[in-house]
């Protein structure tokens, strides 16, 4: 815990100047006797890439699912763009979800729909976002072009490789032009070359759409390339916080275990 306090203090003053788009305070979640999140807190600031690393079962995916309202936390506060998530009704939550893009670990493309229909799907309930003259086709093509897959429009997900599926899923997450992007293990299950492609795409997307990104991963290479700041999650708590360089130099054996 000392590590966390020490490193976090170096960043507090500069972060205070920028706007927090996602604030989590004292988040707790248990499944029966198993306490998964044990008072986790973090802030994601405008335009930054924040990586949360942790071992399997440390509560990373549970935390990110609480952020998008797929799971209800036992206690704690989650504020997205100033809106307290636990106070929102279904309509308000759905509206807020348009501001948050989510890339699922296994892509989660709708396998009975073509790529075009997959990208069209999030637009159905958010037509007001682009006004009355919304050009669905142009939005779909733009999103697919940003992941270099404009030629796959009429293919089904099972006709795409794992890497292509991940890129289509990224395009689907981006189609509503969200302000925050959440990535759940974006490189898991991919070969090293495809992983690098996905990481490059994530950087390109961040540059193009000016999103703030929360990235859940245990891929050290991904964290090194993409992170502006990192949080290490141990036993449902933020154990250490800092830049990749700072954390990788830490003498704490628990922190070092992540970088070996």
């Amino acid at each position, binding site marked *: 815990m000392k590590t966390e306090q020490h490193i976090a203090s170096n960043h507090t003053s500069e972060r205070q100047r920028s706007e927090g788009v996602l604030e989590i305070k004292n988040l707790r979640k248990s499944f029966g006797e198993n306490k998964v999140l044990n008072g986790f807190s973090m802030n994601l600031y405008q335009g930054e890439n924040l990586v949360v690393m942790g071992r399997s079962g440390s509560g990373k995916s549970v935390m990110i699912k609480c952020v998008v309202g797929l799971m209800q936390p036992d206690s704690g506060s989650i504020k997205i763009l100033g809106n307290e998530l636990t106070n929102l009704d*279904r309509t308000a939550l759905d509206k807020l979800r348009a501001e948050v893009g989510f890339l699922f*670990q296994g892509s989660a493309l709708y*396998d009975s729909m073509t790529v075009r229909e997959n990208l069209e799907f999030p637009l159905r309930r958010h037509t007001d976002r682009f006004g009355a003259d919304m050009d669905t086709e142009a939005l779909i093509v733009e999103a697919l072009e940003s992941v270099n897959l404009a030629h796959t429009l009429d293919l089904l997900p099972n006709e795409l490789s794992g890497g292509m599926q991940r890129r289509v899923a990224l395009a689907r997450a981006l189609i509503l032009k969200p302000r925050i992007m959440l990535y759940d293990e974006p490189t898991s299950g991919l070969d090293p070359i495809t992983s690098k492609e996905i990481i490059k795409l994530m950087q390109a997307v961040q540059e193009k759409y000016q999103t703030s990104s929360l990235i859940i991963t245990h891929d050290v290479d991904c964290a090194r390339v993409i992170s502006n700041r990192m949080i290490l999650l141990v036993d449902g708590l933020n154990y250490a916080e800092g830049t990749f360089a700072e954390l990788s130099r830490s003498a704490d054996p628990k922190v070092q275990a992540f970088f070996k």
Partner: protein
Amino acid sequence: MNMLNFPDIKDRVRSFFEEVGKLSRFAGRFFREGFRRPFEWNEFLKQCYNVGNRSLTLVILTGFIIGMVFTIQSRPTLIEFGAESWLPSMVGLTIVREVGPVLIALICAGRVGSGIGAELGSMRVTEQIDAMEVSGTNPFKFLVVTRIFACVFMLPLLVLIGDAFALYGSYLVENIKGDVSYQLFFNNVFGNLAFGDLMPATIKSFFFGFAIGLVGCYKGYHCTKGTVGVGVAANTAVVVSSLLVFIIDFMAVIVADIFYEL
């Protein structure tokens, strides 16, 4: 040796009632959300086509064969009692009132119920349902409400088609073995069929459809434990919905009997 393990039985009884409670809550959610805007018309029509298309060939074949078998089996006995002329009306009544709806419902429980359970189960374990939720679409309305309504509306239609083919199968046997004309056969069938025979059968078909759709969706929507869970969801969807078909049929017969006596 103690054959009865009481704590085990207690747990099973408790989990049975818990499951009944969860299924009832799921049905309650269907009624709350099913009649509220926005309606997913396109998905509903797509599901109607899926439910009908998935079972139509099987329904036609089964109906046709059952009609023939039923006639072949009952003909010698009726001839023995000199009641051969009663065969068309007997087959008509039996098929329209009981055999048709129950048999077609059981076929649909196997074909449609398991299909829905496996489809939604696989969508659940691959996080596709979560992806819908995150995109701001209500997956319950999109996936569950449309499928249950499709089953409710398509099952009576399938029953009517199945009944028609069963009667045609019966006519073919009668025509070959007894030289009965098409007109005579169907005059006999419809001459003895009353509105009171057709209505309870049609009404209970709606309930069969509801039970098949509800159980298939419930099992799939709450599927856990990965690919093994998908298999379990599909399998239990068939078992539970088949059981519900018989329970609903029993209740429908009792209610219809009360009306006949009035």
